[in-house]
């Protein structure tokens, strides 16, 4: 069976569910009575328990980061290009932990899960979360797995915020922090795009003020529209021009014809939106985009990122992508500036790419070389 998987793949993987019965005090003041996390791990924890790496997912990510759930699967996990034997996040050397975070919609406790108090799904009543709540739940997972200190915490975008929060709040538990295409806080433009997406969802008649599950419907249009807006902002103008240009999918420019014209980029976006609406939960989308908007690394540290980073003990690698305008290289340089101000060890590079924000998920030889070079050293000191 494993022979049928591509070389460098972790092969067939299966998620595990971890149940936590201790109440989790959230930053909103409410308490989650208990929760479940869906987790995938790749590679082996060494005897010293010093080679564990935490992968932090972004807005639409989940626990399935690498390998295949079924030999018939056509697509591997979302970061398969970077996780596997011999890959930058080398599963021959690291014990890689990926989870679906609380508030998510891929099996961990979130709006789709049952609220023990009502017996029905949490839906819109799921408590609002902050990135620090994810860190708190991940810390309980680390305790359960017997991991006192992560060799590295790695994340892109929202996952990068998650990784930085780890390094700031649990300095002694993070040896290396890899922050990719991220920011210490969102810009007004970035929040604006999130609000457009949220309004698309809320204004779908099938949303029913978040109670759509009770009506047995899904706000598909709203979700699809939210994803379409997001998707445009995750790519660059140059890439869309190169990939789609003004190619027609149907119809013609010929005068006198009424046949509707559809550009290739339109059908692509509709496909992406519809696919997303099939699997993603609308309440989760609202909840996690709010986590993004509210994230502010330094708010609790006198709005001084240098003070926040002065707490950290980790070494940092910060990576941005040249055409990323949603989490622009300048946001990464702000992180680096604060880390230098705090006298932390940090390396920074801006990788040349046309793929916009999505570049952090996609194959890119230079990005692979940088990640590989950095993590090879991390592995040597495990």
């Amino acid at each position, binding site marked *: 069976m494993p022979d049928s998987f591509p070389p460098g793949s972790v092969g067939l993987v299966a998620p595990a569910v971890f149940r936590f019965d201790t109440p989790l005090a959230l930053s909103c003041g409410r308490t989650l009575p208990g929760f479940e996390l869906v987790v995938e791990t790749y590679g082996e924890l060494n005897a010293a328990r010093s080679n564990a790496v935490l992968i932090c997912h972004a807005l639409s990510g989940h626990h399935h980061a690498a390998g295949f759930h079924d030999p018939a699967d056509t697509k591997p996990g979302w970061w398969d290009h970077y996780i596997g034997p011999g890959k930058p996040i080398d599963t021959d050397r690291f014990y890689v932990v990926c989870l679906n975070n609380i508030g998510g919609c891929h099996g961990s406790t979130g709006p789709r899960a049952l609220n023990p108090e009502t017996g029905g799904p949490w839906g819109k009543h799921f408590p609002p979360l902050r990135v620090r709540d994810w860190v708190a739940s991940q810390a309980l997972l680390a305790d359960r797995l017997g991991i006192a200190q992560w060799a590295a915490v790695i994340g892109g975008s929202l996952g990068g915020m998650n990784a930085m929060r780890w390094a700031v709040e649990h300095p002694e538990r993070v040896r290396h922090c890899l922050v990719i295409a991220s920011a210490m806080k969102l810009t007004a433009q970035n929040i604006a795009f999130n609000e457009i997406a949220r309004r698309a969802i809320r204004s779908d008649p099938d949303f029913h003020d978040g109670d759509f599950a009770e009506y047995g419907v899904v706000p598909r249009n709203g979700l699809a529209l939210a994803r379409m807006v997001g998707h445009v902002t995750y790519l660059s103008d140059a890439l869309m021009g190169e990939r789609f240009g003004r190619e027609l999918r149907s119809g013609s420019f010929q005068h006198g014809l009424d046949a509707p014209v559809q550009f290739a980029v339109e059908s692509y976006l509709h496909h992406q939106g519809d696919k997303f609406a099939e699997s993603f939960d609308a309440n989760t989308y609202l909840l996690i985009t709010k986590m993004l908007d509210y994230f502010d690394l330094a708010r609790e540290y006198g709005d001084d990122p240098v003070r926040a980073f002065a707490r950290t003990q980790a070494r940092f*690698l910060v990576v941005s992508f040249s055409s990323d305008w949603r989490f622009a290289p300048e946001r990464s340089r702000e992180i*680096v*500036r604060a880390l230098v101000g705090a006298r932390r060890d*940090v*390396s920074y*590079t801006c990788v040349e790419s046309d793929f916009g924000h999505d570049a952090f998920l996609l194959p890119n030889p230079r990005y692979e070389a940088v990640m590989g070079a950095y993590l090879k*050293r991390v592995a040597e000191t495990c």
Partner: protein
Amino acid sequence: MLRVELDVVQRWIAPGSRVLDLGCGDGALLDLLKASRGIEGYGIEIDASKITQCIARGINVIEADLDQGLADFPDKSFDTVLMTNSLQVLRRPDRTIAEMLRIGRECVVTFPNFGNIRTRLSLIARGRMPVTRQLPYEWYDTPNIHFCTVNDFEDLCRQLGTRILDREFVGEQFPDQLLQAAWPNLFCATAVYHLATDI
């Protein structure tokens, strides 16, 4: 980098100091200073493959274009700002030197001396831009766009109000090494300067 040049640079870096190395290349110098002087700090580099090499050897490297200025670094935030053999590739070397003096309490700069006798003779005899062992490029493909001589550099230091704490001249071979003490601008191949701002 020549062994002698390296020895001079090392001598001027105080043990345990905080160092910023502009145009750090593959990080070899910082690596060495870490081992020999126990320094901490960062390299600045623009070349993608060299940045990866720095990362591979565990040297802190920050991608930046020196010609865009160094506004990310506060005044006097480093003990020493270093720049070896990069002065001549900058668009405005004067501005970069001024930035170095702003960021560092002290600076160490090395550059090839264009006033060297071999360069002069090459230009006079051949009537063409000099191509030497140290400067192997043709005029049209050279990254070196702002050559200067030892005298030119000292003029710039005076204009910038810089104090020259120390200077050393590194010659190519015998007899240059003997003659450069008396006539540095003629016989030194690489000049090494230790600078500070007059306060």
